Structure formats: structure tokens, C-alpha cells
């Protein structure tokens, strides 16, 4: 497959790969939560760059988009739980250093062995002119069931997480018999109700 790529693309993939691993390592080296978050984002963006070099534009930009928003949401929680701006309080970013090192090294070994030992299939047919369209047809066609299941599972997880995290339910907002016309919220929302 590499043979299909131009020299530029191979070089870009190599550089971005190193970059993504390096900023992945930086996540555990820096001592500020903000820097760790954005080192992680940098790693993801490098991966998005690799996808871009492989001409998988849609996957690349979706990776960048989703990961950025994800990291930004993480930042919200960071502010809530750590008000000191600019990361004034140095804090270590590692938990259970020994155990995680073992797990990490093990996973790396398994994946690396897998990459080099698996007999990867070769491309059948021509490279499509538009990888985005091909991807869309695959998602909405042969892989629709998988994608729908994953999508609904992820959505359910988000909802469940929110429900678990919220102490207040509808009975707190609308009363025991849910008859209150205006919800009893600490801060009113924007809708006139």
C-alpha cells in the first residue's frame, strides 16, 4: 500500500507519526493539566494530519473536529475543578505509574507484533476518486447496522453519564407530581417558561 503513496506523503506520515508519539509522551511529562490536555490534542491533530496525507480528508477533518471539541469540553471540567489559571499549581499527570507503564508497553508490543505479522489484504480494484463518497456509501450501506449500533450505544452512554452526574432530576425541577409550570432551577434558562 505504501507503494501507492508519493514520497512527500510518506515523509509527512513519518514526521507526523513521530510528532504524534512525541506529544503523546508529553501528556505524561508535563505538569499542568492544560498542557497535558493540549499535548493530547496535538497528538490527535498529528494523527488527523496523517489521515490527510493518506488522502482520507473526511476522516482527517472529523478526527480534528471531534477531538478538539472533546478536549475543549475537558477544559470546562478542568476550570471547574482547578480554578488557578495558567496552570500555576504544578501537578503530576501520572497515576499508578508502574502498572500503566506495564500495560502501555504490553499493548504497544501486541500492536507492533500484530502490524508486522498479520497478512494484510492487498487492494482489489482501483483507488476511488472520492474517498469521502466511498466512506459514506460504506457507512450508509454495508456497514449501516454496525454504525447505527455504535452511534446509539455512544449516545446512550452520553445520556447515561449525564443522568448519573446530575443530582437533580425532573422531580426536583417540576415537583413530586410534575405539575409545576416553571422548573425550579438555580439559574433560569433562556426559554420563557
Amino acid at each position, binding site marked *: 500500500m505504501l507503494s501507492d503513496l508519493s514520497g512527500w506523503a510518506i515523509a509527512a506520515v513519518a514526521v507526523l507519526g513521530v510528532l504524534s508519539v512525541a506529544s503523546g509522551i508529553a501528556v505524561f511529562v508535563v505538569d499542568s493539566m492544560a498542557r497535558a490536555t493540549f499535548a493530547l490534542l496535538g497528538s490527535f491533530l498529528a494523527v488527523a494530519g496523517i489521515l490527510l496525507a493518506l488522502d482520507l480528508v473526511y476522516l482527517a477533518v472529523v478526527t480534528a473536529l471531534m477531538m478538539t471539541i472533546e478536549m475543549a469540553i475537558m477544559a470546562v471540567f478542568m*476550570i*471547574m*475543578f*482547578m*480554578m*488557578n*489559571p495558567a496552570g*500555576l*499549581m*504544578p*501537578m*503530576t499527570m501520572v*497515576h499508578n505509574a508502574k502498572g500503566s507503564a506495564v500495560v502501555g508497553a504490553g499493548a504497544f508490543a501486541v500492536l507492533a507484533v500484530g502490524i508486522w505479522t498479520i497478512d494484510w489484504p492487498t487492494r482489489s480494484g482501483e483507488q476511488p476518486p472520492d474517498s469521502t463518497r466511498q466512506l459514506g456509501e460504506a457507512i450508509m450501506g454495508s456497514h449501516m447496522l454496525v454504525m447505527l449500533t455504535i452511534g446509539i450505544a455512544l449516545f446512550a452512554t452520553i445520556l447515561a453519564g449525564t443522568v448519573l452526574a446530575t*443530582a437533580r432530576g425532573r422531580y426536583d425541577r417540576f415537583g413530586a407530581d410534575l405539575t409545576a409550570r416553571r422548573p425550579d432551577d*438555580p*439559574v*433560569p434558562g*433562556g426559554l420563557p417558561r
Partner: protein
Amino acid sequence: MDLISRLGAWALARPRVLVADAPGSDGLRWRVEAELDRRGWPLAVGPADTDLLLVLGAPGPELAAAVDVIWSQIPAPRGRVGLCADDVAAALDDGRTALRERTRPGAADDRPDPSSLLGKEDEQSHEGMDHGSGHEGMDHGGGHEGMDHGGGHEGMDHGGGSEGHHMHHGGEVSGLPMASTGPDRDGLELDVLKVSLGPVLPGWPTGLVLRAELQGDVLSRPALSWLDAESLPACRPDLDQRQVALDHLARVLVVAGWSTAARDARRARDGLRSENRADRKASEELAERVTRRVGRSRALAWAVAGTPVVDRLRYWCDVAGVVTGDDLQVPALEDVADMVDGAEIGTARLIVSALGLEPVPAQRSTESARA
């Protein structure tokens, strides 16, 4: 050299101006704002976007110290002008000339190094830094305020806290007291930062300082006080009530982020004093237009719904028009503190600016008139 100073002169033809008005200099501030509007010089929001610092009237010692702190935070090239009652236009020209002098290569800046201010225990030490958070001294001065350095240590648990092994709250970093955790409005355990707002902020009564704890963007345990509370003038100069109302309206609108309406309210206020009859007439109409626009604005009503700002806005609009409503009482600082307790920081700012707080309460002036 010549090119650079010429470019500098062109660039600084319309400097951004931060106005710090001592209590009792409202009339002067209006004249200054009218002149700035005529010249198209923008009003600055804080020290970071200021070129020219205008100090109006005679600030008391505490406010003067706070203004010095603001001065220390204005990036070069910068200029500073004190203005009492003399010619506003000439003073502004002088300020601009001084400012342009500063752009010449080799013009020395007399700014002390922020870190040199850190080690000292005198009043300015923690204020002179451009940090603006960390502890009380936000970068808009705070002057002598915020010096209860120990305040940051309250309620923090060195180690052994509930935050787990890797996070140590409290303590000091770079000489700044760090946030510590505390229960918040919604029953969570969140970080608490001690902050102080004032004494010089856009749309804020100059000299007022609000000290509070900040969790996220929610203020709690607020306490308000006036700088130089002992040495304030005995009574306020007599000003036209309509102009006062338009001024208050303009200040609320600045805080509410409605720049065009605030501009119109200021212009109406300034025009009402005009000698020219046609100008006065036009300003009457402008005042009417702007109060109608504000009174009818659904977006503004929506933005401030559920706060005391709603009544106040209506009141200022009524007074600014010819409608004479009931005299609204200016609440005591303790009551204001109750109003802003648990409010989001922007709401708190709106409430404070809408109440029309004055360092010298109106009652005192009527009492002195009786006596």
C-alpha cells in the same frame, strides 16, 4: 527615525482612553466623554487596551494608589493626564502629545519590573503585578485592597485534603495564594478563588470594591466597600436628574454590551447641556429614542430577566424621559452584597452598575441641606 515617529504620530492620533474619575467629578467626566466622542477616541475597557489614562478630579489616597497600579499595567507607549476643571480639549491634546513623545526610539519607560514588586511586603507589592487573578488583586487595580494576603489561606487543606494524592490545593505559587476547594451553589466541591472587582471598571462606580469568592463564574460571600470612605466629599454636586439618569443608563448599557445604545445615551446626555437650542431639541429626541429602544428591547429584557436590573432600567428610562416616577431608593452596600451573592459575575456587574450606587448617598446631601 523620522518615519517611525511619523508613523507613531499617525497611529496614536486617536488614542484609547481609560477614564478614572474621582467621586464627585461626574460633570467633568461627562464633558470629557463628550469631547472624546467628538474626536472619535475610543474608550478603553481596561489597562491592557489603554493608551492614555485620564484621572479626573482629586482622587483620595486609596484611589490614587489604585490608579497608580493601573498605570503600572498600561503597556507602553502610554500617557497619563490629571484633569481637574480646566480645559478638557487642551488637556487631551497635551496627553496625546506626551503619548507621541513616548513612541520615539529611546524614550525611557519608568516601569518597575513586576517581579521586583513581588518580594516587597508594602501595599503595592501584589497589586503592581499584571496578573489579575490568583488572589484578590485583579488587574484593574484594587489598590490597597486585596492585601489580605492571608485571606487566600483560609479554608485550604495543605495535603491530606479531599483532592487525592496528586493535587495540592492552596499554598502559594509565584507569591500568589492559590485557590482552595469549597462547596458551591449546586452542591459540588469546586475550587474557590478570592477575587476583587473594582475600583476602576467599565460602567462601574469608580472607587467601589467588591471582594468575593469565585467558583467557576459564580460569586459568593461578597463584601462591598468604598475606597477613601473617610475622606469623601460631604455632598454631591447638583446635577440635572435627566442627565444623571441618562448617564446611569449609558453605564448599564456598556456593561450589558450594547455599545450603540450606550453611545446614544451618552450623546443625549451631553447634548442636553448644550447652549444651542437646536442641539438641545435634537438631544431630547435622541433621549426619547434611546429610552424607547431600551424599554422595548426584548433581547435586553431577556438577558437581564430575573434580576433587579429590570426595575432599575425602567426607572432610569422613566427619569431620562420626562416621566417622574417614584424615587427609587439606592440600597445600602450590605443589601447589594445580598443581591449579588450567588450571581454569575456578569449578572453581578449588571446589578451593581444598574443600582446607581454613589459613594456619597443622596440622603446625606438632603440632610445637609436641611441642616
